[in-house]
């Protein structure tokens, strides 16, 4: 079992529903977020390329945040999901410094927080909140170890990329391009 998220940048309109859905699902305080939208524009009018995409923790295979955590609060659970145990976290910030994606933040209560792939929903057989609300259905979620899963098929058949692959983290959020 290896969970992965695949996001189709050709469909994403950057509406940010994933961001709000995450906030309300996971009680992310106002002013913080576990996922976000970026926009890149290239070219000169009228020859322009626009890419919108939803970003979050990449649940890396080679997760620097897990390696540098002094207490083991940051850890990897089944399916390759990187989680933080709030009451083991001392708030040292090493993991935040270590993340090439700046995907972690200090929760106002002190511990470090980030995307969990909605682990609590997965356990109930539900999709992550962001995936389940996306109006453009540009987000897919599933098991990469299963060659027949939607995500495996998409990655097999479509051109894709990951973010900052040169960081050597082996991210598990993929972008169809």
């Amino acid at each position, binding site marked *: 079992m290896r969970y992965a998220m695949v996001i189709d940048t050709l469909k994403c309109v*950057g509406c*940010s529903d994933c*961001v709000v859905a995450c906030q309300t699902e996971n009680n992310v305080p106002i*002013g*913080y*977020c576990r*996922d*976000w*939208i*970026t*926009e*890149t*524009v*290239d*070219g*000169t009018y009228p020859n322009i390329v626009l890419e*919108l995409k939803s970003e979050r923790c990449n649940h890396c295979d080679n997760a*620097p945040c897990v*390696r*540098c*955590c*002094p*207490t*083991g*609060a940051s850890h990897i659970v089944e399916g390759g999901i990187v989680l933080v145990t*709030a*009451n*083991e*976290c*001392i*708030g*040292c*910030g*090493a993991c*935040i*410094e*270590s*993340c*090439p*994606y*700046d995907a*972690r*933040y*200090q929760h106002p*209560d*002190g*511990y*470090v927080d980030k995307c969990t792939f909605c682990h609590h929903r997965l356990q109930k057989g539900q999709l992550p909140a962001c995936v389940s609300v996306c109006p453009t259905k540009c987000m897919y979620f599933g098991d990469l170890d299963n060659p027949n899963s939607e995500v495996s098929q998409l990655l097999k058949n479509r051109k894709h990329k990951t*973010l*900052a692959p*040169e*960081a*050597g*983290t082996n991210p598990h959020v993929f972008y169809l391009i």
Partner: protein
Amino acid sequence: MQEELFTSGRNIPNIDPSLQIWHWPISLYLFLGGLAAGILFFAALFYILNKEKTYPTAVKIISVVPPIALSLGLLALVYDLNHKLYTWQLYTTFRIESPMSWGAWVLLIVTPLSFIWTFSYYREVYPGLESKLKLFQKFKFLNTFEHFIIKNRRHIAYALIPLALILGVYTGILLSAFNARPLWNNAILGPLFLTSGLSTGAAAIILLSKNTAERHLFGKIDLALIVIELALIAHMLMGYYAGSQVQLEAMQLLVGGDFTVMFFGFVVILGLIVPAVLELMELKGYKVPVIVPAMLVLIGGLIFRFVMVEAGQLTRFLY
């Protein structure tokens, strides 16, 4: 024209637009850790070399500094933690891949040892104080304890040498282990911080020493360390220069950006080159007030930690 922006989300406190996760206490902590490591290293080394009498400052007198430095450093570290009530979690596990965990455990061992080292010279160095406090009369067990320590001083010294080196290297590795911060992410930072720590340790000894021979020796040591440190800094910059785009941009902060004045002005010139020249002049027999180069080295070392911690957090991966 190319544009990259956050459409929504982000603008998170202390994360955007650049990281502000580690603040002044971390810089201070790294400086004090390096200083303590340097002092403890020299104390243990010259004790093992049986130079206790020749170099009393290095072995005995200055031994009061490391416990204070380490205590302040630890306080600073805990002060910068965000989930302080859970600090004890550090000591429920040892994470071999985590520099922070190494640091926590090394400090747990070094700090008491530094107290013990100081304690073993307490009656010898501060007889006046003891005659006032009369601690050994009030608490009889202290006599047994002191006796036991003095008997085992050599063992402690042997332990302190590697521990001090680990502590000194650790202050650099804490930063260099982060792939995500290109300014920090180079193998030189560990040795560089260690060298800088030893150099500040030597400078502190010079500052406290009233013995010309001792001052000269540590002047020479410090000079050598400064030369090594300059070489390591040059090496570090060359590494950035030969590195990827992100490292080039990181280097830009030091050589042509917001931190250039601080880095070259205060760290390289005032903190290294000027004291080196002054120390050299003193060794050649010119009259130089020793306090000047020593203070410059110490301040330069402190500023160096501030520059690296602050500037490093401005650097990030591009994607």
